[in-house]
């Protein structure tokens, strides 16, 4: 089945990092579970009318955000898209603040001004969720350039979808980042679809990112994005290389979104067989099983799950008790002086 075989086309199939000790792996499980539950509950809040506007869930793609965040230094930079809740939460941003932003509350991450598609938290290295396809790839390169110039050994990691590989900004960012040898990792989360259109029907190559790597003199890297161990090992290698001045990497992580593109989309265009096959590769139950097989106890896993469940409910309680946004702020913060005057 297309896209199911993760080593297909990858010159160097990544190996599972078997050194990760159990504690670390439990953390990886906890984080994936946090992201899963965070978004499942967000979806319910939509249904309940507490969240308005639009929203794009990454349910099924949690292993990628988890693996990369675990490989990053606290001062590294994350750039992501409208489908970015996971990446922001994985960098340590408060769930309550993100829920608050989705609900458009005063205590939301950007006080309601950004919304679901524009989460940003510089103190966590989360330098933005971008809603125009492709735009953030060159911006991530810019943060990497700044790190290179300042000599801080920070790395920028930039997440985007398969559909994004066909837009011009992708090409400009990749070429320039390689020429300038910037410490930036480009991570294509290939969830097989742009919005409703299968990526294969609009792309000249089978692996939209991996098959383009050579056009930038980069190694072709295609991994199982649903296996957090694989993701973490790949992330560590690429980030270490970039930190040491080895330049960018382009990584294609194959995955699947369990739901539709956005709130409006029931995703009925997807063949049931395809959905079934990918649901069998759901990163969470599979990783849970792997941990049990590796010696983790059922009770420890359940403890984690319960702790996460109550963390998420607490965050929701906090967010729902936030007041609506203060209208007095609406004219603030266009300019660095705090205001928005266009005249003297």
């Amino acid at each position, binding site marked *: 089945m297309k896209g199911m075989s993760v080593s297909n086309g990858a010159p160097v199939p990544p190996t599972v990092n078997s050194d990760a000790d159990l504690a670390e792996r439990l953390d990886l499980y906890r984080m994936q579970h946090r992201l899963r539950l965070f978004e499942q509950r967000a979806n319910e809040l939509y249904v309940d009318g507490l969240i308005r506007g639009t929203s794009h869930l990454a349910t099924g793609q949690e292993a990628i955000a988890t693996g990369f965040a675990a490989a990053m230094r606290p001062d590294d930079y994350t750039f992501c898209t409208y489908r970015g809740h996971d990446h922001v939460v994985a960098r340590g941003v408060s769930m309550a603040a993100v829920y608050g932003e989705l609900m458009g509350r005063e205590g939301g991450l950007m006080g309601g001004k950004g919304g679901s598609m524009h989460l940003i938290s510089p103190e966590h290295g989360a330098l933005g969720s971008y809603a125009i396809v492709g735009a953030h790839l060159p911006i991530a390169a810019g943060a990497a350039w700044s790190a290179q110039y300042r000599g801080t050994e920070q790395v920028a990691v930039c997440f985007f979808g398969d559909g994004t590989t*066909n*837009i011009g900004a992708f090409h400009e960012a990749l070429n320039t980042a390689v020429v300038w040898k910037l410490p930036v990792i480009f991570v294509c989360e290939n969830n097989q679809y742009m919005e409703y*259109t299968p990526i294969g029907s609009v792309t000249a190559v089978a692996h939209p990112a991996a098959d383009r790597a050579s056009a930038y003199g980069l190694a072709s890297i295609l991994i199982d994005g649903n296996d957090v161990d694989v993701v973490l090992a790949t992330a560590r290698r690429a980030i270490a290389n970039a930190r040491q001045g080895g330049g960018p990497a382009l990584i294609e992580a194959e995955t699947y979104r369990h739901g539709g593109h956005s709130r409006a989309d029931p995703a009925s265009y997807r063949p049931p067989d395809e959905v079934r096959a990918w649901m069998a590769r759901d990163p969470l139950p599979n990783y849970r099983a792997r941990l049990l097989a590796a010696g983790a106890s059922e009770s420890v896993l359940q403890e984690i799950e319960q702790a996460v469940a109550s963390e998420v409910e607490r965050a929701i309680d906090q967010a729902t008790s936030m007041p609506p946004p203060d209208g007095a702020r609406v004219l603030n913060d266009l300019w660095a002086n705090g205001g928005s005057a266009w005249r003297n």
Partner: protein
Amino acid sequence: MAELTYRGAVAAALTQEMDRDHNVVFLGEDVAAAGGVFKATPGLLDRFGPLRVRDCPIAEQAILGLAMGAAMTGLRPVAEIMFSDFFAVCWDLIANEIAKTRYMSNGKITLPLVIRTANGGGIHFGAQHSQSVENWAMMIPGLKVVAPSNAADMKGLLAAAIRDPDPVIVFEHKNLYATKADVPEGEYVLPLGEAKVVRHGPHATVVALAAMVPVALRAAQLLAADGIEVTVIDLRCLVPLDTATLLNSVRETGWLFTVEENPRLCGWGAEVASIAAEEAIDSLSGPIIRITTPHLPLPAAEELEALVLPSPERVAATITRTLR
């Protein structure tokens, strides 16, 4: 007459024109199999087949390049850019290539093409998916600009845009897609460049566009309750601009208000105001007032967005205060 939604009118106009002319082709992202993310084009793929209704990669420069090259060589393409905010990723094609080629070529090249796009705010999508950018198009010589406020105009003006021999940008307002109106059945084509007086009143002229037309009409109702009767003009097209209807009304009422969804600076109302200040200054009884979104990106939260978009209450209050 049949009741149609605004989005239904898009499909109706496309169907009417594609039935009529085999050279009309339609392309965009998620427009064919999925029928468009705003569900404005369902059924077209089935009716006209995959050669005439085509899904594209996320590559807006490619989409408009395809449309332009096809228009140069005998076709009449209709290209969808999913959100008007994304004009920014293909602005070169729009502003530098499509708009300028006829003039630069001394008339050797004609470009009969339409760019349809979902424009405007009010649905809490945030700053990058809510812009009203009619002025972006208006400021570029060589583009015609249409922005219907209701389903009937959508059908008639989109059909006219497709038949027009020049590039036409059709702004479809996202917040109007679900609205319904009586729409003429059968072939229906309106002329481009005719504004419509949608309410008559002697006390002031209120000029609006697209989703601001219902806002202005609602404001007019509020004002009427206070004894102020205003004329409301739905511009419908920005290029060509129906200055006659505009100026005639201003000369009658002596007052001009614009209701603009765009952020203030260089909005379409600035142009309208400058035309009136040049050509109807002697008829003006007082200042020309522009009611716009403040010069800000649109905030995402519903409460904040509602604060900055022109509302019937703000329009009515501004007019009352000015006329008093």
